[in-house]
């Protein structure tokens, strides 16, 4: 150091993907998978908030049996908006486009996804879809329900069906782009030594998910296009008054939309495998069983769509076949739950925020999966389909499980993404509040569903009120639980302590690089020599200090 040089006050922070370039343009034109993940994170959170707002309107209306807060029409538009936003703009892109985008290249030791520009295009197409959906709200909403059943959607509804369809069409293509990227990246860009059966289960889950997206989403796209064509040109593709078949729509719609449930749940299962291993500090039990069950779910998931149509008028024999396969698809999900539970055995378990979310996931997913069997049993489904029993069931699976995993993932990888630590106390409280609030919201709905309360009713007979009040009260707690992390996570962003590269002391390539990771992910391409989750195996009784 010479006398003339100015004194160096601070060591320059190491280069990372956040300080690599500055300015709006460096974000909006980025091809860095990590930055695109952040773009997705912000937008997906906004859509979740909007969808949640619509849900609060629904729950407020349902506190009293009479339709007094809003008109029937506005109620219908609220639940439609809630379903559309949550399904197509939060649950489906949520974990893959945010966490998958950020983590898959890091987990497999790649510098980026195979097609970074396609990845950015995915976000823009997604935003176009979001814009269409926002326009739907501005021009007066749409009241078809997120299922768009014909001929109501194609002929009778006077909502902005075509705009909404375009929104979903665009969101679908955004997820196709992401899925192409994942499949190619996982196939071709793994680090040397990273064989298929050394991949983290998170990557396996995203691989299976991508296959479902690639084979299912185009069918939804063309179906929705046909609804649009029918509405514009009055060709009776689905309207029987014009020679069409309304059941064809249901077949095509569920051919995508049932596998879509697995698009939401499989990535969550991948997350849970990561969390459980990190906080039991041991190899996962039944690695291959979990990995291959993801593929089994992806395959069987395409063969069960007809279980949404047991009372639709499809043939009895078709119904029985779909019922049988539905029972079979439950098995690979059960395998996963058993293996996760077995992983706890002889583990070294610490109850951190992400771990609580993971255990919460197991609880909610188990309930969601088991109640799915009620719906798979065709005879019972006759009674409970289109009631609150179904509403409760799919919220347990899609919301209970997927959002628990999403929150768990955000908390687990937050130090990696931002380089900062959040406050554990707040984290644990929010996990518990969400778990309690969720069960309070949706458990009563099982009971009132079996009692016969139909879904999509804005006014209902008095005897259901007590359950609706319980459900709305639970929803308030749930909403509080969802808002809480927003504050302490943002707080940590500015005032949180530095995380270090590997705050959980977890295995996985993503923890071997800096936090936040540098622009090119790794200083040099890592070489993998061991299995996934190669935590040290204790030889005898071990006491770990209760830190």
């Amino acid at each position, binding site marked *: 150091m010479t006398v003339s040089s100015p004194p160096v006050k601070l060591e320059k922070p190491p280069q990372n993907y956040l300080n690599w370039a500055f300015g709006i343009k460096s974000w909006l034109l980025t091809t860095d998978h990590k930055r695109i993940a952040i773009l997705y994170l912000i937008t997906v959170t906004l859509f979740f908030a909007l969808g949640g707002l619509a849900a609060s309107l629904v729950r407020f209306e349902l506190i009293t049996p009479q339709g007094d807060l809003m008109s029937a029409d506005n109620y219908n538009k609220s639940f439609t908006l809630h379903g559309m936003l949550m399904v197509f703009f939060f649950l489906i892109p949520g974990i893959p486009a945010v966490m998958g985008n950020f983590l898959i290249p890091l987990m497999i030791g790649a510098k980026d996804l*195979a*097609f970074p520009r396609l990845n950015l295009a995915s976000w823009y197409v997604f935003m176009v879809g979001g814009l269409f959906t926002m326009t739907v709200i501005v021009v007066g909403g749409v009241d078809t329900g997120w299922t768009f059943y014909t001929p109501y959607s194609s002929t009778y509804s006077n909502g902005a069906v075509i705009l909404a369809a375009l929104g979903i069409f665009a969101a679908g293509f955004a997820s196709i782009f992401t899925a192409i990227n994942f499949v190619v990246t996982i196939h*071709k860009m793994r680090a040397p030594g990273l064989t298929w059966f050394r991949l983290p289960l998170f990557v396996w889950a995203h691989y299976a998910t991508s296959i479902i997206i*690639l084979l299912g989403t185009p069918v939804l796209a*063309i179906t929705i296009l046909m609804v649009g064509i029918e509405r514009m040109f009055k060709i009776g593709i689905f309207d029987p008054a014009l020679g069409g078949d309304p059941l064809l729509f249901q077949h*095509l719609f569920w051919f995508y939309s049932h596998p879509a449930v697995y698009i939401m749940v499989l990535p969550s299962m991948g997350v849970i495998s990561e969390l459980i291993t990190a906080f039991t500090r041991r190899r996962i039990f039944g690695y291959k069983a979990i990995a291959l069950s993801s593929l089994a779910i992806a395959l069987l998931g395409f063969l069960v769509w007809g279980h949404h149509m047991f009372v639709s008028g499809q043939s009895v024999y078709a119904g029985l076949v779909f019922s049988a396969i539905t029972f079979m698809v439950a098995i690979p999900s059960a395998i996963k739950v058993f293996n996760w539970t077995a992983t706890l055995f002889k583990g070294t378990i610490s109850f951190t925020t992400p771990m609580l979310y993971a255990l919460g996931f197991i609880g909610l997913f188990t309930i969601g999966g088991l109640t799915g069997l009620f719906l798979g049993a065709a005879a019972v489904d006759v009674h409970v389909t289109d009631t609150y029993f179904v509403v409760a069931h799919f919220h347990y699976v899609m919301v209970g499980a997927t959002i628990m995993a999403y929150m768990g993932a955000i908390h687990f990888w937050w130090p990696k993404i931002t380089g900062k630590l959040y406050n554990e106390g707040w984290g644990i409280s929010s996990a518990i509040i969400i778990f309690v609030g969720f069960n309070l919201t949706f458990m009563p709905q099982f009971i009132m569903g079996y009692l016969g309360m139909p879904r999509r009713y804005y006014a209902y007979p008095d005897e259901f009120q007590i359950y609706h009040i319980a459900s709305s009260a639970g929803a308030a707690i749930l909403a509080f639980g969802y808002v809480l992390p927003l504050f302490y996570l943002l707080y940590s962003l500015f005032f949180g302590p530095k995380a270090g590269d590997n705050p959980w002391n977890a295995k996985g390539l993503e923890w071997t690089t800096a936090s936040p990771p540098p622009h090119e992910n790794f200083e040099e391409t890592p070489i993998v020599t061991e299995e996934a989750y190669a935590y040290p195996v204790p030889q005898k009784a071990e006491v770990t200090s209760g830190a």
Partner: protein
Amino acid sequence: MAHNQPSVVAPYFRDIDQQREANTLGMWVFLATEVMFFGGLFMAYTVYFFNYPDAFHEGSRELNLILASINTFVLLTSSLTMALAVRSAQTDNRKWLIIFLIATIVLGLVFLGLKGVEYGEKFQHHLVPGPHFEWDGSFFYEVQLFFGLYFATTGLHALHMIIGVGVLTYFVFKAFRGHFTSVSYDPVEMVGLYWHFVDIAWVFIFPLYYLIDRTIQ
């Protein structure tokens, strides 16, 4: 195989082989989604063909078999010129690459032109679904449905052709500037795969719409 050229290999790939494999797989995966995309329309076709076979036969007889047969021939030939273009790129033959690309474009445009003539005929005969649709025989709605599916399917196919022609035109300019060599030919190969897919889609569309009932005249 080839040595690394920074201008050819993107920084996030290890080497050119990895890049080429990734590109090829990506294209195949994309084509798989395209199959499912068209598959929805073929599914609708199948269901209604079995529901209303008579209406579909009558509708089919209104289509112009001669123009469509010429078009089938044109499109199959364009697949050949496309394959030759890929070959020329792989062998560093810039002149023939450009010639074959242009030939493919011209054949594509001929196809689209003839398709336009066919569409024009349908407009004149009031066979376009919608308020101006006219049909004297029985099965008014069913025949309209046939034409609805016909326009949706061939329209979607034509849209793919237009996109293909656009990309090929862009590639002609890139070929002039020497972008495609035996090292960096994969974009040409990619668009070739796409073009063959569009061709194969037509090979399914042609019999389903034009050839289902040509015996009873």
